[in-house]
């Protein structure tokens, strides 16, 4: 149950590339520091929107499955909704909505 030290590889990669991106942003592109905090906030908002879109999609899916079973009498599994593709599509919805929202600010 102890954590394998090899699992630190992924976080280490992300930290290293984030640091590289930060340096490029500050030195080459001359991006303001203040914008970084706002960008982190936006990213977290996108995650929140992802969860909201995911919850609504799953909720609507459950309603559809129950209605389908009730109306047709045929079996439709709830497990159809437990698919990573729905998560990817929800992320796409969140990104589009986020961009739309940001432009309206």
């Amino acid at each position, binding site marked *: *149950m102890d*954590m*394998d030290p090899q*699992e630190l590889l*992924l*976080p280490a990669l992300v930290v290293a590339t984030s640091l590289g991106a930060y340096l490029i942003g500050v030195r080459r592109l001359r991006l303001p520091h203040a914008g970084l905090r706002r960008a982190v*906030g936006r*990213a*977290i*908002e*996108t*995650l*929140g*929107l*992802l*969860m*909201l879109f995911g919850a609504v999609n799953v909720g609507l899916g459950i309603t559809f499955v129950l209605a389908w079973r009730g109306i047709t009498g045929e*079996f439709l*599994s*709830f*497990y159809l909704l*437990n698919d990573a593709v729905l998560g990817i599509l929800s992320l796409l919805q969140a990104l589009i909505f986020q961009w739309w929202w940001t432009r309206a600010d």
Partner: protein
Amino acid sequence: MPRRRDVLARVGWGARLIRAIGGATLAIILVGGFTPLANVLNRWMGGPSQLGPAEAIIVPGRGGADVDEVLTNRSMRRTLRAIGLYRKSLAPLLVFSGDGLEVDARVRLAQGLGVPGEHIVAARGTNTTREEAVMLERLLRPRGVARVLLVADPIDMPRTRALLQRRGFTVLGAPSASSGPGDPESRLSLLRDIGTELFACVYYRLRGWM
């Protein structure tokens, strides 16, 4: 102007809520992926392994079979574990339930590994855990089976066990894959499955099925 301010205030409140949800999501991803949380929950849901003599070994469906009639990973693991327990003579009957393709693939596998056909019970044509419990009662009661060894993934144990107990079976748990996965992606996937199973438990309770 005041009206516009109200709108902006509402949007600001909404943005804070969305950020809170996003922050919680990020925390769950980091904790779920890089700590043993999912594995701990997995083991807790599975409960203790209670390997002992029984009258039948029950293997509920899990994930079915692919279109080429090969069992999915989880279904295969359960089946092999159950065959291992049968070979240890913990029960004289091996019972496979689930949809037709999955059950047929399991029966072929068990027979291929030397389990005699007369020691296999095929409970075909069930789509849900509740339907499985109903069919298992119908098939096993006439054979005098009351004490069963349940082979299932740890996260499936609580609901399946409760349904079988409600039908009068004494259930001994034999969780498969109880230690859980060892990489971040699989742990997050397990965490999602745990969430799905907890939702299913709530749904079954609301329907009065367990």
